[in-house]
Every structure is written in C-alpha cells, then in structure tokens.
C-alpha cells in the first residue's frame, strides 16, 4: 500500500462498491483508488461482479407474476381450506368427548392397581382436549407468541414451579409459534404450540410430575388426534397432534432428548 493518507481498508472499499460508504468519504476514496492500482483492481473486480449478478437476475423483477403467487389468492385459498376443516373438527371433537367418557369408564374399572397409568392417561386426554380447542383457533392460538419466547418460558417456569426450556422442533420443520398457561387436574399446565409450513399444528402439554417417577413413551389416540406421553423426574409431557403415529413419535423423541432427564 502507499504512504498516502487516508488509507482505506478492504471493508471500506467494499462499502464503496455497495454504495454504503459515508458520502463525505467518497471523494477521498476515489482519490485513494487513483493512487493505488491494486486497490483499484480489487474494486473493479467487485463492481464487475455486482454488475454480472444484476444482469443475471434483475430482469426477474419485471417478469409477470403468476396468479398462484398473488398473496391475495393464496390467502383466499387458505381460508377456504380452513373453513372446510372446522365443521369436521367440531364433529371430531364431539366424538372424542364420547370416546373419552367410554375410555375413562373403561380405565376406572381396571381398578386402583392401574392408578398411575390412569392419571397419566387422563392427563393425555386433557392435553388432547386442550390441543383440539386451541390448535384450530385462528385469532388467538397462543397467549404469548414465540417472538417473546424468553418471557414465555420464564413465565411458565414460574407458574409450574419447574425450570422449563424453550422446546425446539425446527430441525423437524415445526416452528414454535408460542404458548399459554392452562389448568390441569392438580394445578398449572404449560402448552407450547408448533406449526409446520403446511399449517399443521402440534402442541406440547407439560405439568409437574410430583411422583418423581419416570416412564417411557405411551400412545393414546382419540379420533384423529394422538398423544405421546412420557415422564421425566420433574415433569410430565404430552405431545399432541393430528399426525401419523410415526411422525408424532419422531417429534416426541426429539423433545424428550432436549430435556435433560435430571432437570428440576
């Protein structure tokens, strides 16, 4: 480089090329480039690159946009899909209720020996009911959105009196959209909701596990909604959704692995 003052860094030269250099410094930059052929060469190469990239892709902005990429049409399609869904879901919810009564009756006749199973399964039904109610809600599916996930997790942790972590299913293409506080049989429950690109939602229902006993996965289904439940030493989990059993299990395994078994 030359002894010339000022000397510009590569970053500043790049800013010049991208039109982001402070306008007050452009004159000094241009003088510097005139005196420094190496720097000039670099800048010319980058300018050529920018020009080539624009030549390759800029015309795309003038191309007519196909109707199916018009957001107004996409939104209409989405709404007609949703309105088809809803009456069907209501029917499903009604049959689930009937089934739940039947199942609960069945479980109770199994007697006290199975009481541990019974409470786990009863909680799965709570989780499924909560899923069916909130996952179809268009206006307020969650109380606190994922944008405030830190707040959500600390709030729910406080209410459950357990240290929760932010559950992450993004590796399986389900994004956290938020969560809410719910009532369970023995106190507070946390519900986290996830959504995939197709709008499919799954919920994770968490309550404290006072027994401290652990369990492996068990599956419960009602109509089209299924739940995997499991216990770790401090918490009871239910992952609920209208997916295939395999898909749901994949998501549940991912979540189970995220929660350190000993976390309190």
């Amino acid at each position, binding site marked *: 480089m030359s002894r010339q003052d000022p000397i510009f860094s*590569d*970053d500043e030269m*790049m*800013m010049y090329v*991208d*039109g*982001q250099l402070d306008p007050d410094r452009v004159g000094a930059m241009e003088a510097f480039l005139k005196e420094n052929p190496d720097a000039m060469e670099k800048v010319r*190469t*980058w300018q050529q*690159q*920018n020009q*080539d*990239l*624009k*030549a*390759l*892709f*800029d*015309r*795309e*902005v*003038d*191309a007519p*946009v*196909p109707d*199916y*990429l*018009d*957001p*107004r049409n*996409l*939104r209409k399609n*989405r709404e007609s899909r949703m309105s088809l869904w809803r009456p069907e879901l209501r029917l499903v919810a009604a049959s689930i209720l009937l089934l739940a009564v039947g199942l609960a009756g069945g479980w109770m006749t199994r007697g006290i020996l199975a009481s541990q199973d019974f409470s786990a399964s009863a909680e799965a039904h709570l989780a499924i009911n909560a899923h069916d109610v909130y996952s179809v809600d268009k206006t307020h599916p969650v109380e606190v*959105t*994922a*944008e405030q996930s830190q707040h959500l997790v600390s709030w729910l942790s406080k209410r459950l009196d357990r240290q929760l972590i932010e559950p992450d299913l*993004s590796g399986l*293409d389900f994004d956290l*959209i938020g969560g809410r506080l719910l009532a369970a049989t023995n106190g507070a429950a946390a519900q986290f909701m996830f*959504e995939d*690109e197709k*709008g499919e939602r799954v919920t994770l229902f968490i309550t404290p596990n006072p027994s401290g006993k652990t369990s492996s996965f068990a599956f419960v289904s009602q109509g089209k909604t299924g739940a995997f439940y499991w216990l770790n030493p401090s918490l009871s989990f239910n992952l609920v959704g209208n997916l295939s059993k395999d898909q749901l299990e994949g998501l549940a395994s991912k979540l189970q692995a995220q929660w350190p078994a000993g976390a309190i």
Partner: protein
Amino acid sequence: MADLMDDIADQVPALRRYALALTQDRDRADDLVQDCLERAIRKRRLWRPSGSLKSWLFKVMVNVNRNQVRRTDFARNSLPIEEVRDPARLSEQAPQVNRIALGQTAEALAKLPEDQKEVLTLVVLEGVSYREAAEILNIPQGTVMSRLSRARQNLTRLTEEGVEKTVSVRTVK
C-alpha cells in the same frame, strides 16, 4: 388485512428475484416464493407494523430456504447442472452482456457456500444496507461484512477457475 396482502403483493417481484438467485432454478424459485408467502400469510399476526414489511418477508424467505437447503442438501448433486446453470434460462439476456462471462458468474455463484450466497445476493440485488442484511439474516453486522468479503473472494476464484476450464474445453474442441 386486505391492505397488508396488497403490500405483500408489491414485494413479490423482488422476492422472486432473490429466490431465483438463491436456487438458480425457476421452478424451485417459485416454489420457494410460494412457501414463503404462505408462511408469511399464516404468521402475519407475528409481524409488527413498526418494522419493515420487506425485511420481514425476506427474513421469512431466508428461513424457508435454509430449511429446504438443509433438507435437500444430499440431493443437490443430482440436479441437471447444465440446464440449471444456463444463464439464458435464468433471465432473458440483455443485448450487450457477455454471455460466457455471465454463465461463469452464475456457475461460480452456484458453488458458493449457502451463507455467502445469501448475503451477497441480498446486498447486491436488493441494495439493502449491511444493517438491514444483518437483521434479515439474523447475524451480526460484522458477520455480514466478513461473509460478503469471503463471498467476493470465492466468486473471483471460482470464476477464474471457470474461465480456465472453458479455455481448456475449447482447445480440446
């Protein structure tokens, strides 16, 4: 809400350009745009009117693309390279540009690591500031600049390699 859809519609041409630059394949680009729009419509309640709609939409596109790239990474080698990289298919040619040079740039761009490609095309094609790019890509501004600098170095190197290859192919012919 109708207004928001109109505002989103105004951004579609720019989103298509960015998608084409990222994928270099028209069908995949429009799939990407469609996924991005559907996701944006679904999540529109998460968008706060205080921010820039453009940045938010580009952010959604970047995330959808990152997911797709992760998912299809292993399948990428099976793409029909010649077809995909033919600049004539990417954009109708402007009359005075050097087609061979453009083809080499397109080919070099396709070989860039995804994180360098996304920052370079965002800054150059959309003309966003480094600060906006940092927000869209969810990385610090210093990282925007270092990736940009690496992207340009690599692009230079890959383009030169492309030229050498073309020259040797021509000699053989």
